């Protein structure tokens, strides 16, 4: 197999057995679970503003507000989901609760009548997403060969993002064929959620990362107990601080799209679809960039990925309005996500002790989510105080200063390549 050969380190510093460098079937299955679930949630998210305004005859003001609040709640629930997964040593069960919760909200949408019930369902869906993310990423880590963790996350995020790109497309195709077919979109959404849930429940093994680690020589026979102190271990703490600092300079795609839209007719016309462009770039690049991170170091790729974000800011902040700049900005955002989203989970999973892995991944993701929210709020102030272009260029300048500092701060987090010790999971 071509991929297998290419995956061998060129230097030959280590001889990875051929079978171990395949992506675990657990990772692929979890990726398909995420694909189905993302079709489910993104199909609804894409048409919800239209449904609320066109079918229910309401404005979207309150919706946007509540959505923002729930993004925050979702970020905090992640830590709890990770903690529960580590404590019980059954990450699959915790993930199943999260996926199940979202599935129930899809069924609820079929019978929901008013605006209040719809916002409540969207809120519960976000909580479900918060619960399942960290346990799922811990399962990906547990099922993967540590030397190829970046690639494993790349595979998972690619499948996940395919779902995120397909969902809105399917939803709009349905509305094209059936102009008032909102219920049909909800039925599609429920169907995909049920398939994703069934796939996880029936075909993903109940991995027990802590119990397996306990069998390794030198470990406590009952496995190391969960301790928050392990999450605050120095190297992890360094990752959290750097992620938080970079998160504070990540203002959100929304502002980049708005800046592009404010002066480019091309961006205005395709405004509702700009995020699809970002998603396509992301899904195309998640695997290659993940593999790159395995080769040159995950911390390095994580920090340097912010240079793509910086370039996207420059595209959005530049004074000329050209379709080419819009497309470049979308691709750069995709590069940024490919270099940061899965890679962050891989890095946190790699640094954390098995006993706290899900909690560590959840904490890292929460730090990033919360700091990005703060960044978005703060950037809103700059946006009006300085004007769109100046504000964008100022953040780009700050990011340009922060990247080298963060790069140095994370030096040494990328260990010399670890000996290949797959922690198991079914190897395809």
């Amino acid at each position: 197999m071509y991929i297998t050969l290419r995956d061998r380190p060129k230097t030959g510093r280590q001889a990875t057995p051929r079978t171990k460098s395949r992506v675990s079937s657990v990772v692929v299955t979890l990726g398909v679970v995420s694909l189905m679930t993302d079709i489910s949630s993104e199909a609804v998210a894409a048409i919800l503003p239209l449904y609320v305004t066109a079918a229910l005859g309401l404005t979207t003001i309150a919706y946007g507000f509540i959505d923002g609040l729930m993004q925050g709640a979702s970020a905090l629930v992640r830590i709890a989901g990770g903690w529960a997964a580590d404590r019980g040593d059954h990450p699959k069960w915790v993930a199943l609760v999260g996926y199940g919760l979202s599935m129930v909200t899809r069924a609820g949408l079929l019978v929901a009548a008013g605006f209040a019930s719809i916002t409540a369902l969207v809120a519960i869906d976000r909580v479900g997403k918060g619960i399942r993310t960290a346990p799922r990423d811990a399962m990906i880590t547990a099922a993967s060969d540590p030397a190829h963790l970046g690639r494993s996350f790349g595979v998972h995020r690619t499948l996940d993002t395919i779902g995120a790109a397909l969902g809105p497309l399917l939803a709009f195709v349905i509305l094209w064929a059936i102009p008032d077919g909102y219920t049909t979109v909800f039925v599609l959404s429920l169907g995909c959620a049920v398939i994703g849930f069934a796939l996880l429940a029936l075909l993903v093994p109940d991995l027990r990362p802590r119990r397996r680690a306990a069998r390794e020589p030198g470990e406590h026979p009952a496995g190391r107990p969960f301790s928050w102190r392990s999450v605050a271990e120095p190297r992890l703490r360094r990752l959290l601080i750097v992620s938080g600092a970079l998160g504070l300079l990540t203002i959100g795609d929304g502002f980049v799209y708005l800046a592009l839209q404010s002066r480019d007719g091309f961006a205005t016309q395709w405004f509702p679809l700009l995020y699809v462009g970002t998603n396509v770039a992301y899904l195309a690049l998640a695997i290659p960039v993940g593999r790159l991170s395995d080769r040159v170091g995950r911390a390095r790729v994580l920090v340097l990925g912010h240079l793509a974000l910086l370039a996207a800011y420059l595209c959005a902040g530049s004074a000329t309005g050209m379709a080419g700049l819009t497309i470049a900005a979308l691709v750069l955002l995709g590069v940024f996500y490919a270099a940061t989203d899965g890679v962050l989970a891989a890095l946190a999973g790699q640094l954390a002790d098995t006993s706290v892995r899900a909690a560590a991944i959840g904490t890292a993701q929460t730090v990033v989510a919360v700091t990005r929210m703060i960044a978005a709020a703060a950037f809103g102030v700059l946006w009006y105080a300085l004007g769109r272009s100046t504000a964008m260029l100022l953040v780009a300048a700050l990011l340009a200063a922060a990247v080298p500092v963060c790069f140095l701060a994370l030096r040494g987090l990328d260990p010399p390549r670890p000996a290949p010790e797959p922690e198991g999971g079914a190897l395809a």
Partner: protein
Amino acid sequence: MTVRNRRVIGFVLVVLVVVVAAGAYGWSEYDRSRQARTTATDVDLVPADVTVTGERIVFRSTAPGDLYGRVATVAADDPGGPREVAPVACDRVDTTGDRTVCLRTDRGVVTTFEAALLDANWQPTRSWPLPGIPSRTRLSPDGALVATTSFVTGHSYMSTGFSTETVIHEIGGRDYGNIEEFDLLVDGEKIAPVDRNMWGVTFVDDTIFYATAQSQALGHTWLVRGDLEARTLSVVRDGVECPSLSPNGSRIAFKKDVDDGSGVHWSIAVLDLASGEETVLGEQRNVDDQVEWLDDDTILYGLPRDHEPGVTDVWAMPAAGGTPEVLIPEAWSPAVLRQ
């Protein structure tokens, strides 16, 4: 049979049930929708060779059937009577007779939104894209200026929440751009709340207009008086949304949030500009529309029907208060053409 095989079979069964059930539902919905859209509408139409002229009301027809969403015209003295249906569909419409602005949704694999200017024969003369779902539109009295408000529904990993974009164009001339960029003045002092949103323009003439400026952070929903030459928006008073100027220019009808708690319930109120006196009219239902004036004593607004998704009626109510009545059934976004 191994446990694994049993599970695989179980999963395949789940997939089959889901695909068959969702497919069957989708097909029946497609069939129902196709029939609904191809069935000839039973609404009363004028004969094919007749044009409605004189004082008239132009609106979006929401009568189910093959003409759903089309722009229609009725005589002002027989608003519930037969309608003339134009060959264009719009979500929001305003007209001066020779010129019509139409905000519409282009459905497709990629759904986009646009504003179009139409001539007296409903032929497009100009169009430009909108960043989101159409919300409000108005022409200035002489038709020289057009204002459009649309939602900006960003969709990203981190949602930026709700915002609107309101732009004013001079037809065949200057583009005044997004009025969010104008200076917002409270008692002459310039302020710049970060989360300000503007919507619902109503023109006085080709320089002065009224609109809504909201900052949720500051907790204000202001009526602002805009000046296109000075590029300023001066705050007039608080608690006014979607203003609409009466034909004689003396009063403004608007949406007023009358909910005591944290919720939103819009009723209709009328403000006398000279005295500053505000009267909340007796509409108990929640109205989300920019009011239109039938004449100096009567206001018009749209309300969705309960239990009939997509169908709306245009209601009329005395501007001094009174009982609302349906003026045009199965209609939305009325624009009154006076002589």
